[in-house]
């Protein structure tokens, strides 16, 4: 399973879903995230901190599915250091169009600070 979930809080004590991604992310993996954040699910409209490790790849099905999640989360701070993974996420963001509640960062601290500063 390339997704690892952990419920936590931001430095300011706001609910946070911490998601670590690695390896080959399939449509089933993407749907598991969708199930956690859909309306009525425990993490609906939460802040998400996603740590995407180097070498993570997204299947065609997952790439097409992710943009549909945009209204289901409060905000996602994606922490990515690999240029290739960043390029992949940028491609998916292009599919989403305007996604003001999704930002890329290179460190967790930057991502958490951005999430804490948002009114959701």
């Amino acid at each position: 399973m390339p997704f690892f979930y952990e419920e936590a809080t931001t430095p300011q004590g706001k609910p946070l879903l911490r998601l670590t991604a690695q390896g080959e992310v399939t449509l089933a993996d993407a749907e598991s995230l969708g199930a956690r954040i859909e309306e009525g699910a425990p993490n609906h409209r939460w802040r998400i901190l996603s740590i995407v490790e180097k070498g993570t790849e997204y299947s065609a099905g997952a790439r097409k599915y992710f943009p549909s999640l945009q209204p289901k989360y409060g905000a996602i701070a994606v922490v990515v250091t690999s240029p290739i993974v960043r390029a992949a996420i940028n491609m998916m963001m292009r599919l989403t169009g305007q996604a003001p509640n999704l930002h890329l960062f290179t460190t967790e601290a930057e991502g958490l600070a951005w999430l804490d500063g948002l009114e959701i």
Partner: protein
Amino acid sequence: MSVTIEGERVDQLLRIIVAAATGDYELRVPLVEEDDDEFLEVELGVNYLLEELALGKAKSDSQRQQLEARAEELAHQQSELVEALSTPVIAVWPGVLALPLVGRIDDERAARITAVLLERVAAERATHVILDLTGVGTIAGNTMPGLLRMVRAIGLLGASCLLTGISPAVAQQIVALGEVEGRAPVRALAQLSDALAHVLAQKGALRG
């Protein structure tokens, strides 16, 4: 935006695009973490595009195979149906078989008709066979002798053969065969109903 790209990366990308243009979607642009620039997103985008093309091609191939299999199955069913309809032997009375023929008769069809009909004559111990040619437009040039041989074969099985609905063209074909081929024990009547009445009269079924 201005990006300086090594010529090798551009060449590599072009080679892969050219391969894709010829239908080869299996190649991928090698991605290097150190190439941290906007062109990396272009290279990745090309890879994603190739992946979609490969998936689309696989789906299309699979659908084509399914369609071909279905077409083959339908052709087989159609062939079976045509074969069944081409020799609709009907038992119109005990010991009396009728075969209304429709369409063009060639050697292959004549051979099939002969096989089916002789089998039924023997199986049902038929005394009479009525061949109705009302729906037959033409009989292929070399086929008429074959049909007349079938009539003789029916006679050898102890049954009488009656031809009905002969068109002027078919009548001329029979006459053109001359004495030898035309010597089959055939009785011709205008309509199927005439032949049936004739047979039933012979059998005495109309009496009383």
